[in-house]
C-alpha cells in the first residue's frame, strides 16, 4: 500500500492500470516496446505494460472492472500472432513480445477515435471542464477532426437527467463504454444500469426511468467509472476541477472507507469538490456508498454551531461566550459538584465518531483529572457485547478477520445484520463473493436485500424471532455436534472446556426441534443451514446489532464464537467471527479505554501493573474500581449521586433507550456539557455547549471493524477554531491536570507507548503503510489482518456454555407485537449528519414496516399515520405494509428525532454489558389521527432544510 499524495501536495488521480490485479503464483515475462516485465500469470498485456511504464490508450478499461474489450483503443501487435488484439483482453504469456506503437495500431487508434468524435458534441462541457479521459486521449492519438461530415448522432434524443441530488447524467457526452453499467454490477452489485437498444441506438439507462426513480443506490461507482462527463458530480460542475488531494477516512459506518478528498482553494476557503474512494484503501479498495461519497454537506450546514455557548439553566437562552469562559464554566462546575457530592459525581462519555486521539484524551481526563472511572462510550449501546463475548472466548475484543477475507469464504452466516443498508461497501464485497458462487445463510427476522436480489439468492433465510438468537445458535451448534460435523482435531488442539461444552450443547433442549417454537425456524431448515455451514471449506460469521442489542447479546456473541470453534472456522482467511461495527470508530473508542472497567487495550482497571504504567506517566493515582456505565449514570443521576456529565459527540437523548428516563436523568443534573457539531437533542438539557469539529477538520486516526487504523487528515482547518482533543485537554488543564500535546500525533505516540497492541503505531508509520491492523507489534510490524492463527490470543479458545435465557420483555394482549429496529442506506444513526444533506431526498422520515396480516386486522394501509406504543411510551409515524417482516414483528429505523423511536424502547439490557435491548420491545400499533404533541414539538425543532454542499 502506498500513499500517493502527501496532504496538500497537489492534484493527481490514482494510477489506473487498466485491468484488475491478478493473484497467481506462476508468472509470465513479456517484452513490451523493448521493456521486459514479469507479471503474475493471467495478467493482461495492458496491465503489464502499465507496470512497465508503457501507457496504452484505453477508454473502456479501468482497473476496477474486468476487461471488456469494447473501445478498441488499446489494440497492439504481438509477434507471431495475427491481427491487432486488444491489450486489455489479451493475457500475457511467457516470452510474448508486444509492440504498442506501430504505425498500424497508431493509425487504427486514430481512426477509432475519429469515429468517437464523429458522435460527440462539439461543445462538450466535460471537455471544457478538463475532466474527460476521451478528450486527453484524442490529443494523444492525434485525432483532432472527424472526416465523416454531418451524419447521424445520438445527441438529438439525449435527455439530460439531473434527478439525482448528487450527480447528473448527460447522455450527450456518453460514449457507451459501459464502464458505468459494469461498475454498477461488478463493483456495487446493484445492477441498476443497463444498455438499452442495440448498435448505434445503444443507450445507457437506469432501467428506462430517471436515476432518482431507478434502483440506483447512488453509490457513485458509475460516476467514478465514467471516462467522460456523461456522469458527473454536481459539485464538480459547480466548483470546477479540484486542485489538490487530501487522503482521509470516512466518518460514517464501521467499514472505514479510505477517501481522497479532492479539494480546491486553501485554508478557510478550501472547498471539497468531491470525495473519491481510494483504490489503495484497505477497507474499500476504491468503492464507496452514498453516505461516504456524497453526504458530507452537513459539515457546512447552517445548523453547525461554531461558538461556545453557556446558560445557567436549561430553560435559559444560550449565550455565546469565549472558549476561555466556556471552559472555565465547565471546570468550575465540575469541581463544585465533586466538592459537594464527591469525586464520583461526574463523568464523561466519549464518542465513537471521534478519533482515537480525541477519545483517548477523554478517558484520560476522566481517570486523571476527574479522578474516577466514570467514562463510557456510545459503544455501550451497540457493540459492548462484542467486546465482552469475544474477549471471553477468544481473548480479544475484536473481529477476527479483515474484510478481504470474505473473498475466501465459501459459506457466509449473516446474523442480525443488514449490510446492504448499514455497511454498503462491505456488502458490495460480499455480494461479489456470492456471485462467484459462495453461499449465504441469512438469520434475521426481516427479509433483507441479501435474501434475494440481483444475482443473489440466499441458501436459507431463517427469520429468527427477535430475542431467540441464543436458542438459534445453540441449535446450530447442537446439529453440528450431534451429527458429528464438528472439527474434533481443532477442538482438542486449540480449545478448552471442550467436554463440558459438547455435553451441554448436545442436550435435547438445544436441538432444533426443541427450539423450533422459540426461534420460529422449522427444525429441518435449521439443520440444513447448520450442515451447510459445517460442511463448507471456509465458513464465516458476520453479525451486527441484531446480535448485540438483546438482553442475551453477550451470550449470543459467545454462542457464535462457540459455533466457529466447533467447526474449526477460526484462524485463517475466509472464516472467523466478524462484527459489523455501527460507527466509524466504535472499535477505536473501545480500544482507547473508553469503558469504565478497562484501560486502553482492554486491560482491567483492577490490574495494578497496568495502572502503574499510567500512574507513572500521568503522575496521578488511578481508582482501581470500575466506574459507571452510561445507563448507570442515568440511574445514579435520578438517585441524585451523579450530577455532572461531559458528552462528546453523542446524542444520548435521542439514541439511548427509554427517552423519558434519559431525559429525566439529564434534567436532574447540575452540569451537562455537550460537545457536538449541532445543538442536538441532548443539548436541550445542556448548560455548556462546546462546538466540535467534523471529520473533514480532524487530524488523527479511526479504527474500523477490521481493526484497521486509518489516518484522518484535516481537509479544512477547524471551523470553530480548536481541535477537539484540545478542548478536552483545556478542560483537564483548567481542572488542574495539564495535558499538553503538540499535536494529535503525540497523543498516538502516548497510546503506542502505553498499549502493547498499538506498540508499532505512529502517524509516520501509518503515513508510510497507508493503514495497519492492530496488533501492531514487534512480532507483527505491519499489523495483523487475521487473528488467532495457530493460537488464540488467550491461549486456548474458551467454549462457553451458552444457556438460552429468554428476555423478560414479552408480548401480551395489550402489546401483542414485537418491535425491532434497524438502519436504512441513506441515513445514519440519529441522522444528525445525513438529515443535513440531500440524503433526505430518499428517506425523509422513519417508516414502520408491518406485515399485511397485522396491518389488516388493525385497518392499517401503507401511508397511514400510526401510533406505536409500548409499556414505556408512544410515538407516531407512517406505516408501510410489507411482507419483509414476519407476522407479529414490526420494524422501524431511528434516524429522525421526530419519530423518537426510543420513546418506546425499554431499559432492558444485555445482562453482561447493559447494552440496551433495542431489538425487542413489545408494542401495539394503531391508526393515529394526528402526530403526538411531543412529536410535533420535536418536528418543529427539527424543521430544518437539508444542507447545501460544502
Amino acid at each position, binding site marked *: 500500500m502506498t500513499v500517493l499524495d502527501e496532504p496538500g501536495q497537489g492534484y493527481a488521480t490514482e494510477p489506473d492500470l487498466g485491468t484488475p490485479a491478478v493473484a497467481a503464483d506462476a508468472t509470465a515475462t513479456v517484452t513490451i516496446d523493448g521493456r521486459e516485465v514479469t507479471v503474475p500469470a493471467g495478467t493482461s498485456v495492458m496491465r503489464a505494460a502499465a507496470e512497465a511504464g508503457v501507457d496504452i490508450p484505453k477508454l473502456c478499461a479501468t482497473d476496477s472492472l474486468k476487461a471488456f474489450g469494447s473501445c478498441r483503443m488499446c489494440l497492439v501487435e504481438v509477434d507471431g500472432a495475427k491481427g491487432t488484439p486488444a491489450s486489455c483482453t489479451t493475457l500475457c504469456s511467457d516470452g510474448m513480445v508486444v509492440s504498442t506503437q506501430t504505425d498500424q495500431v497508431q493509425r487504427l487508434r486514430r481512426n477509432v477515435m475519429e469515429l468517437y468524435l464523429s458522435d460527440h458534441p462539439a461543445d462538450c462541457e466535460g471537455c471544457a471542464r478538463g475532466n474527460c479521459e476521451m478528450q486527453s486521449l484524442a490529443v494523444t492519438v492525434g485525432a483532432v477532426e472527424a472526416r465523416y461530415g454531418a451524419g447521424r448522432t445520438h445527441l438529438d434524443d439525449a435527455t439530460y437527467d439531473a434527478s439525482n441530488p448528487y450527480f447528473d447524467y448527460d447522455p450527450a457526452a456518453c460514449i457507451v463504454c459501459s464502464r458505468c453499467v459494469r461498475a454498477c454490477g461488478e463493483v456495487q452489485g446493484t445492477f441498476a444500469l443497463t444498455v438499452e437498444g442495440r448498435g448505434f441506438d445503444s443507450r445507457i439507462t437506469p432501467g428506462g426511468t430517471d436515476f432518482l426513480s431507478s434502483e440506483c443506490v447512488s453509490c457513485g461507482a458509475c460516476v467514478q467509472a465514467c471516462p467522460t462527463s456523461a456522469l458527473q458530480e454536481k459539485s464538480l460542475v459547480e466548483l470546477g476541477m479540484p486542485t489538490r488531494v487530501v487522503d482521509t477516512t470516512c466518518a460514517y459506518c464501521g467499514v472505514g472507507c479510505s477517501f481522497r478528498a479532492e479539494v480546491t482553494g486553501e485554508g478557510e476557503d478550501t472547498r471539497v469538490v468531491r470525495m473519491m474512494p481510494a483504490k489503495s484503501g484497505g477497507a474499500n479498495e476504491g468503492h464507496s456508498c452514498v453516505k461516504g461519497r456524497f453526504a458530507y454537506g452537513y459539515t457546512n450546514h447552517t445548523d453547525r454551531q461554531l461558538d461556545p455557548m453557556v446558560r445557567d439553566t436549561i430553560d435559559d437562552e444560550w449565550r455565546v461566550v469565549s472558549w476561555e469562559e466556556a471552559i472555565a464554566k465547565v471546570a468550575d462546575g465540575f469541581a463544585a459538584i465533586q466538592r459537594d457530592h464527591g469525586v*464520583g459525581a461526574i463523568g464523561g462519555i466519549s464518542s465513537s465518531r471521534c478519533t482515537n486521539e480525541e477519545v483517548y484524551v477523554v478517558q484520560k481526563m476522566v481517570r486523571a483529572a476527574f479522578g474516577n*472511572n*466514570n467514562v463510557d462510550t456510545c459503544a455501550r449501546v451497540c457493540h459492548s457485547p462484542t467486546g465482552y463475548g469475544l474477549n471471553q472466548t477468544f481473548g480479544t475484543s475484536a473481529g477476527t478477520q479483515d474484510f478481504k477475507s470474505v473473498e475466501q469464504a465459501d459459506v457466509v452466516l449473516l446474523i442480525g445484520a443488514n449490510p446492504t443498508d448499514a455497511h454498503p461497501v462491505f456488502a458490495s464485497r460480499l455480494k461479489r463473493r456470492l456471485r462467484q458462487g459462495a453461499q449465504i445463510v441469512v438469520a434475521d427476522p426481516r427479509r433483507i436485500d441479501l435474501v434475494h436480489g440481483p444475482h443473489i439468492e440466499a441458501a436459507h433465510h431463517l427469520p429468527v424471532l427477535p430475542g431467540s438468537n441464543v436458542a438459534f445458535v445453540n441449535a446450530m451448534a447442537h446439529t453440528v455436534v450431534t451429527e458429528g460435523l464438528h472439527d474434533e482435531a481443532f477442538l482438542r488442539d486449540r480449545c478448552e472446556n471442550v467436554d463440558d461444552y459438547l455435553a451441554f450443547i448436545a442436550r435435547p433442549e438445544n436441538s432444533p426441534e426443541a427450539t423450533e417454537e422459540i426461534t420460529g425456524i422449522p427444525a429441518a431448515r435449521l439443520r440444513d443451514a447448520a450442515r451447510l455451514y459445517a460442511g463448507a471449506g471456509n465458513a464465516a460469521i458476520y453479525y451486527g446489532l441484531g446480535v448485540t442489542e438483546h*438482553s*442475551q447479546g453477550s*451470550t449470543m456473541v459467545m454462542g457464535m464464537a462457540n459455533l466457529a470453534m466447533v467447526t474449526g472456522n477460526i484462524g485463517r482467511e475466509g472464516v472467523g467471527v466478524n462484527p459489523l461495527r455501527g460507527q466509524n470508530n466504535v472499535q477505536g473508542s473501545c480500544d482507547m479505554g473508553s469503558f*469504565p*472497567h478497562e484501560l486502553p487495550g482492554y486491560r*482491567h482497571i*483492577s490490574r495494578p501493573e497496568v495502572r502503574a504504567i499510567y500512574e507513572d506517566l500521568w503522575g496521578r493515582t488511578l481508582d482501581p*474500581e*470500575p*466506574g*459507571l*456505565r452510561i*445507563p*448507570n449514570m442515568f*440511574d*445514579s443521576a*435520578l*438517585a441524585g*449521586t451523579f450530577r455532572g456529565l461531559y458528552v462528546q459527540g453523542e446524542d444520548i437523548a435521542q439514541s439511548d433507550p*427509554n427517552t*423519558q*428516563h434519559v431525559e*429525566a436523568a439529564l434534567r436532574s443534573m447540575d452540569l451537562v456539557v455537550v460537545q457536538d457539531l449541532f445543538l442536538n437533542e441532548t443539548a436541550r438539557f445542556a448548560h455548556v455547549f462546546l462546538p466540535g469539529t467534523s471529520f473533514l477538520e480532524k487530524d488523527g486516526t479511526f479504527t474500523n471493524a477490521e481493526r484497521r487504523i486509518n489516518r484522518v487528515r484535516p481537509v479544512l482547518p477547524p471551523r470553530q477554531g480548536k481541535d477537539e482533543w484540545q478542548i478536552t485537554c483545556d478542560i483537564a488543564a483548567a481542572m488542574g491536570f495539564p495535558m499538553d500535546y503538540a499535536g494529535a500525533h503525540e497523543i498516538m505516540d502516548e497510546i503506542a507507548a502505553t498499549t502493547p497492541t498499538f506498540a508499532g503505531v505512529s502517524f509516520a508509520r501509518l503515513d508510510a503503510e497507508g493503514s495497519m491492523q492492530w496488533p501492531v507489534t514487534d512480532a507483527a510490524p505491519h499489523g495483523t489482518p487475521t487473528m488467532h492463527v495457530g493460537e488464540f490470543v488467550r491461549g486456548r479458545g474458551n467454549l462457553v*456454555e451458552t*444457556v438460552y*435465557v429468554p428476555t*423478560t420483555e414479552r408480548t401480551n394482549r395489550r402489546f401483542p407485537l414485537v418491535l425491532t429496529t434497524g438502519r436504512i442506506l441513506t441515513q445514519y444513526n440519529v441522522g444528525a449528519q445525513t438529515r443535513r444533506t440531500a440524503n433526505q431526498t430518499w428517506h425523509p422520515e422513519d417508516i414502520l414496516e408491518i406485515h399485511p396480516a397485522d396491518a389488516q386486522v388493525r385497518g392499517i394501509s401503507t401511508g397511514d399515520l400510526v401510533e406505536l406504543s409500548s*409499556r*414505556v411510551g408512544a410515538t407516531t409515524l407512517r406505516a408501510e405494509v410489507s411482507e419483509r417482516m414476519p407476522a407479529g414483528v414490526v420494524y422501524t429505523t431511528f434516524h429522525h428525532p421526530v419519530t423518537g423511536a426510543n420513546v418506546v424502547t*425499554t*431499559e432492558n*439490557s444485555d*445482562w*453482561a*454489558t*447493559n447494552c440496551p435491548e433495542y431489538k425487542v420491545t413489545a408494542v401495539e400499533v394503531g391508526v393515529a389521527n394526528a402526530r403526538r404533541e411531543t412529536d410535533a414539538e420535536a418536528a418543529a425543532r427539527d424543521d430544518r432544510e437539508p444542507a447545501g454542499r460544502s
Partner: protein
Amino acid sequence: MSETTQHTGLAPEARMGNDIARQFAHLGEEEAVARIAAHIDRFWEPRMRHALEALAAAGDDTLDPRLAAAARRL
C-alpha cells in the same frame, strides 16, 4: 436509588442483578453464586455494589435469592 421511570418498577440494581443471576440459573447453587459475585465485582461501580448489598441486607424480596447470596459475598 429507588425512584424509577422504568417499567419493571424494580430498583436498577435489582433488575440488572437479576438479569445476571438468570444467566447462571443452570449451575449449582455454589458455583452460580460465585459466578454472579465475580461478574458484579468485575464490572459494577462500588456505589452500585453497595446499593445491592443494602437491598440484600434489607431482605428485598425482588432480588433473585442467588443474587442476594452473591451480594452478601461482595
